């Protein structure tokens, strides 16, 4: 038993617990609000990390060290990290569009959200007022981890085993939605690339560079071959074909 376990098991709120709560609870709230309010997606995620860390400490404080540590390892350590991973891959400047598709939606959401929070919070406050916590000592009698293990492997063993079905579904789903299976004939190895490069009808040499600076400063300008023809091969395929104005095609006075 650590100090906090002993204190929490005593049933009443101790000084240390109260102080920790009053420091971390506002932090958790600020984190939650910051997560919603932050413009930058990565900042949002970081605020959420703060809230989750505070929750983890709360669990430890309430004599559930196992669930507290698991909260930190799994949620903040793994899940939020994956979140950040995706956000960073998407790009740091990708911020949400601020256009409301439904007018007044945001105001309505805030009002309803606050109303719901007030309703649930008020109801809980009224219901819990004067309630004394019971059962912690029995639950942690053999130690916190052992207590959880006992519940998982006796009373809730069926539900526990059932979660494996969830995990398998999730794995299959991830494969189905994200994995592109390349067929054998689609796989190109180095020899076949070379064969295709030297196949009849394909010019194996490097493509000519674009005609930048010859007549214009655009990379969309085709290069002029030694025989005077323009070659389309010199411009990238993804660039749109653009009609050049007379001014653009005229000589820039650099030829004198």
């Amino acid at each position, binding site marked *: 038993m650590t100090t906090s376990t002993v204190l929490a098991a005593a049933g009443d709120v101790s000084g240390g617990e109260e102080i920790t709560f009053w420091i971390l609870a506002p932090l958790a709230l600020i984190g939650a609000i910051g997560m919603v309010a932050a413009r930058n997606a990565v900042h949002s995620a970081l605020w959420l990390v703060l809230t989750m860390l505070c929750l983890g400490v709360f669990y430890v404080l309430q004599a559930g060290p196992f669930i507290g540590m698991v909260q930190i390892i799994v949620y903040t350590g793994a899940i939020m990290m994956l979140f950040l991973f995706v956000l960073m891959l998407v790009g740091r400047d990708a911020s949400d569009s601020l256009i409301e598709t439904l007018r007044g939606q945001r105001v309505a959401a805030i009002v309803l959200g606050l109303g719901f929070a007030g309703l*649930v919070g008020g*109801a*809980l406050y*009224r*219901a*819990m007022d004067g*309630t004394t916590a*019971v*059962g912690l000592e029995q639950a942690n009698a*053999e130690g916190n981890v*052992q207590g959880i*293990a*006992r519940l998982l*492997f*006796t*009373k*809730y*063993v*069926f*539900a526990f085993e*059932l*979660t494996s*079905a*969830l995990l*398998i*579904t*999730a794995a*299959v*789903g991830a*494969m*189905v*939605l*994200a*994995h*592109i*299976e390349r067929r054998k004939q689609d796989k190109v190895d180095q020899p076949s690339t070379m064969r295709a490069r030297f196949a009849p009808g394909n010019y194996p040499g490097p493509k000519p560079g674009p005609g930048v600076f010859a007549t214009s400063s655009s990379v969309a300008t085709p290069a002029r071959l030694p025989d005077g023809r323009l070659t389309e091969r010199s411009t990238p395929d993804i660039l749109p074909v653009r009609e050049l104005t007379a001014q653009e095609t005229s000589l820039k006075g650099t030829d004198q």
Partner: protein
Amino acid sequence: MTELKLPSLDYAALAPILIMLGAALVGVLVEAFVPRRSRHVVQLTLALLAVLAALTMVVLNADDRLITAGQAISVDGPTLFLQGAILVLAAMALLLIGDRSVERGGAFVAQAAVTAESADDRRQAEGRNGLTEIYPLTTFAIGGMLIFVAANDLLTMFIALEVFSLPLYLLCALARRRRLLSQEAAMKYFLLGAYASAFFLFGVALIYGFTSGIPGRGAGVDFSTINAAVTESPTSPVLLFAGMALLAIGLLFKAAAAPFHVWTPDVYQGAPTPVTGFMAACTKVAAFGALLRVFHVAFAGAAWDFTPVLGAVAVLTMLVGAVLAVTQTDIKRLLAYSSIANAGYLLVGVLSPSRDGLSGTMFYLVAYGFSVLAAFAVVTLVRDADGEATHLSRWAGLGRRSPFYAGLFTFILLAFAGIPLTSGFTSKFAIFGPALDGGQAWLVIAGVLTSMVLAFPYLRVVVMMWLSEPGESTPTVTVPGGLTSAALMIGVLATLVLGVAPAPLLDLATGAADFVR
């Protein structure tokens, strides 16, 4: 540390669940080890055999009335009846899912990760065989539903909810045609479903807190504890009401009751049609099975408190479903709103406290499941070069072009409308009768009025099919292969038989209509 003792598991009673989950696991292995060309046949056979085996076990267990796996699973009349219903309907849905004759390669995309609308995507839409992972996913979903109707504590119920929802989210995203619509549907379903699950979980927590105060008994979320707490607990009932409301939100979301119905039209429209049929039939059975158990077993003592609220939800659901169905121009959305309205009728059944109300609800679930699956089977058949032609204007004059299928569809629509000699009439009768006896006349009046409103869109489709001239754009009806025909015929025949001779099934339902507590 004292020894841990595993609770006794009655494997025979759990067999249907274990068979379905086991088949799903085998299905995942089949994906890994069986060559691609024979996977479809193997998977479909495996899934159908598993459903058949599970159904056999349900029939063999017919007389079981017990609670097993600790307090987690109760096997009793309603469980077995609803499990049987889910399995039969799931077998029909599997026939639809497995059909590859209507569309080359089936209704599912070949590679879901290929960017929608890209060149690769167009190539694969042309005829590459669809994914075969859908079979293990469907089997998992069926297994989850079997547990959902049998769950005897809220935690098991929650996990069962996830077990059958997660595969459904995935299946919704796998349509072969109109993939963006399909992916959007899956996304909406997933986000809203996750929200509903969160509400459910919050409710479970509050209920757990509520049960903690019973003298001489530990806290718990199994239904007998909750039932005892409702009558005995000295804790403030605010916890009970808040918990009950949040639980109801989670369950009503799955049942597609207003105001938690907004996902339904979008998801029904976007999902591959066989999956839509599966959801409309089986998810509804599972969701109402759980609602029945939660409100008749766990919260039975609080009936006075929840009946007015749920009654209001029922009326609202009927109204929303019926009124919005009138304005729809897409056949799948029309059926979605009709399913919302039907959820309202079913809620009337849930609110009848008598044994007849329970049996009527179960009968309604089965009858509606058969009809709706047949309806979606017809929807898969009406198609043009771009896939299914679901816009209602395209259905004009269909009766002239293919009178047989138009006739079948008309029959199903009439059943939905509740015309006598169809299952729609008998099932509405089975639900509204006990409600009248139970003193819920206002619900019955609302039900009858909305039924009349709802008949209008159905009849409009009928009129459109038969009394308009077929135009240039009227699609042909594909002649279905064996699987779809079988599903369609089973659905239509069941609709007819349950309309003409409902007595055997009603008797069965009445015989099964008592919960083990």
